[in-house]
């Protein structure tokens, strides 16, 4: 008996060895009643508290304030004197967990074959054991929108937290947004080169999109009627694609429109103003030329997901344009969330926001753009995005300004779990800093 158990362990270890590619090797989290005291607490929605106290009880924030007397003996106390506490940051545009090694096609699960894939769920392909997940979360990024790519409609993005062993336990919203790649009407180097051809191609794509939405609305109506009263009716045939679009046409699932150029942004605004589309809950993503038409985006009331660390899109653009785009949108009245568009380097989200802060947005607004703004845009601000009593306990302790690379992110909490602060990167550091040392 003993012997076979032992062999089971050996076998398990061998199997682990085989699958280290996917292993997320970290320690165990602390969970329960935790009090962090004497830090500067940046609540985001309710000001900044000096020498504050924040207590976590299970998955939720139990108290935020200055009353130290509420911290009783049964709390694990973390002294954070001189430190800063922020809500966990959220990246509104990634393919984290869908792609492991981009150059190795068998590890790339964010791009399905086909032009219309509303039924493809990022949630399904999300690998909770991706090596990139611990690397990301120890930087203070606790939540991501992870999105599929390609085609006209790529599929549905999921809003995931970054602690757990199954997509089910990590999903805040498995259908957080339908990704639409806005068909460009611009002539491109790699696309149609004359404007008429580009316009024709654009119109065809939009006609196709409108047709799909019409079908989805019809399907939704038909299904609603059947579901309300199936008596005496033939059950309509189920169509996976149209079924997946029901929540979209109801306005429950947002439509994330990836759009970049001025002309395309204007087209997308015009399209979204059609009466047929009034039920859609539209978000723009990318929006590199948003600054050119910021007022119009604001007028349309469409929130934007943008990054800052890319080269100016036109050779004659000002050098700082990518850094300044979020501020330009914000100042026009657009609700802005900062994203990276990354896979393995989602950890650079604070730096994307830092550049936005330095170039017109200011630190306070840039903090919002990675916390409460994305939470509001994706309709989950009752649970995420700020340090308030009753919200999910997602937060981190930083030695200083979290946008500064010179600061250290010292401890991360995700839904109340005190996360082990290790990742492949820290583990390799520990192993190799003094490689040839022997035990003393």
């Amino acid at each position: 008996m003993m012997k076979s158990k032992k062999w089971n362990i050996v076998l398990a270890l061998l199997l682990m060895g085989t699958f280290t590619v996917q292993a997320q090797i970290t320690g165990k989290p602390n969970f329960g009643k935790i009090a962090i005291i004497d830090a500067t607490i940046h609540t985001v929605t309710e000001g900044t508290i000096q020498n504050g106290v924040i207590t976590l009880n299970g998955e939720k924030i139990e108290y935020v304030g200055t009353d130290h007397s509420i911290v009783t003996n049964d709390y694990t106390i973390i002294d954070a004197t001189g430190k800063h506490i922020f809500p966990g940051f959220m990246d509104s545009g990634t393919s984290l967990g869908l792609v492991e090694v981009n150059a190795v096609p068998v590890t790339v699960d964010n791009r399905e074959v086909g032009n219309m894939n509303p039924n493809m769920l990022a949630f399904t392909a999300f690998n909770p054991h991706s090596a990139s997940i611990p690397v990301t979360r120890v930087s203070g990024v606790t939540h991501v929108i992870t999105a599929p790519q390609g085609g006209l409609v790529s599929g549905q993005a999921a809003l995931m937290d970054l602690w757990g062993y199954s997509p089910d336990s990590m999903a805040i919203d498995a259908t957080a947004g339908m990704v639409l790649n806005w068909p460009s009407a611009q002539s491109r180097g790699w696309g149609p080169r004359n404007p008429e051809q580009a316009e024709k191609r654009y119109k065809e794509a939009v006609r196709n999109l409108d047709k799909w939405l019409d079908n989805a609305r019809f399907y939704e109506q038909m299904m609603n009627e059947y579901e309300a009263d199936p008596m005496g009716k033939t059950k309509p045939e189920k169509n996976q694609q149209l079924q997946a679009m029901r929540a979209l046409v109801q306005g429950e699932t947002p439509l994330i429109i990836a759009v970049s150029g001025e002309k395309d942004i204007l087209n997308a605004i015009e399209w979204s103003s059609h009466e047929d589309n009034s039920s859609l809950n539209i978000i723009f993503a990318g929006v590199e030329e948003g600054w050119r038409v910021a007022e119009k985006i604001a007028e349309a009331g469409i929130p934007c997901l943008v990054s800052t660390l890319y080269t100016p899109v036109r050779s004659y653009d000002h050098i700082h344009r990518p850094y300044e785009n979020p501020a330009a949108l914000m100042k026009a009245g657009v609700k802005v969330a900062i994203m990276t568009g990354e896979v393995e380097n989602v950890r650079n989200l604070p730096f994307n926001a830092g550049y936005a802060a330095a170039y017109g947005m200011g630190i306070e607004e840039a903090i919002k753009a990675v916390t409460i703004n994305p939470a509001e845009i994706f309709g989950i601000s009752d649970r995420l995005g700020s340090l308030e009593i009753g919200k999910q306990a997602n937060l981190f302790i930083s030695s200083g300004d979290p946008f500064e690379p010179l600061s250290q992110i010292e401890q991360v909490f995700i839904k109340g779990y005190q996360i082990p602060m290790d990742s492949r990167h820290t583990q390799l550091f520990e192993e190799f800093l003094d490689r040839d040392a022997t035990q003393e």
Partner: protein
Amino acid sequence: MKNTITTLLILAVFSIGTIAQEKGSVLIQNATLMTITDGIIENGDVLIVDGVITAIGTDLSAPSGVSVVDGTGKYVMPGIIDAHSHLNTVSTNEARNPVTAEVTMEESINPNSVSIYRALAGGVTSIHLMHGSANVIGGQGETLKLRYGVTQDEMRFDGAKRTIKFALGENPTRVHGQGNGIQPRTRMGVEQIIRSHFDEAIDYRIKREAYLAAKEAYEGDKRGRTAPPVPVAKNLRYDVLNDIIDGEILVHCHSYRADEILMLMRVFNDYGIRNYTFQHANEAFKVAPEIAKNGAYTSVFADWWAYKFEVYYSTAYNATILNENGVTNSINSDSNELIRHLNHEAAKTVRYGETSEADALKMITINPAKQLGIDEMVGSLEIGKQGDVAIWSGHPLSIYSKVEHTYVDGKKYFDLYMDPVDMRIAVDSEDSYTEAGFNTFIQGREEDSCMSDVFELIQQ
């Protein structure tokens, strides 16, 4: 448009024969000086006269005619040097043979690329313009000064060491083995390509020298008793390989995995090659003691990893581990985006492993200068060095700091406060139909820039 062409033609005609760089003079007063090699000087002055730093101290006065810049509250540091760039190449890869030592970036400089200006705006003054990584032995590099608005030749860094690009691992095996069905298909093949070419080059030199000696004897033999020797043709490729063996060319080797780094050090020890730099070197941290022992250098990304398999088992703590093990390391961009904020990339070495701020700054100044053989001329604020400096609004490692002025040879090439929107020198005809190079939402990367233009070539 016609005017632009005429101007360029005139410039081109003028540049032939006489390469006279424009140099400037300036006195920067009362700033925090990050000297790099001699600590930080508070409230210090730097005087540049005719392109050379002539004085560093306090209360310096400007010689007549020299403009004065008030540096109160500002930071002055030497211009950033990027040891790995494809910023303004015309072409990057001569990807049709595993060994193309004879090609040079000297013939592939686009002096009009607006990317040059964008890099200046990030405080960069010199770059190492490199061949790509399609070939095991690619082409020779060119060290440039970012004198925006001059000709190809005038951009070249006078006195810089000659360099050459080598490449190991996935890129050459993919392009040649997988793509063209020839060696190398494996890391075994990569080693043998290098060894066999050095052996051939050595044999060639013996034969060529013997032939030249015989030819001289034959031509000097007035009585006609000597038989004419069989000619051994000049071979540029082998000549370059022999120059590497002779130490006249510094090797910069694209590499990722620890084992291939060890392989190249073994090979170079066998051929007596010294003073080389491992580029990218994501797994260099695994063999840091061996790299230090061999006196090799490394030039790495701050945090890129996992985009291809050979960088999957790597860490952003690479630079710190190398530095702590005594390896002279630089942080490079290999990207027209990262080159705009190499200060920020260097700052990441403080985040990842708590490298000191002083060492972090060395990784984008004096360390890359050593790797390019230009450290006697640039890379620190020292009297006698060239006047390549940038004035920063705050500490250069802070994300909130901006470059206010960038000087090359004492001449100002970037000014934050006189910064027009459109800084193109020549209008690219591509702009008329390529409206913009858009990113749109999720990007991800599967390549370093070292592979640019390879697959277009293969597809043709």
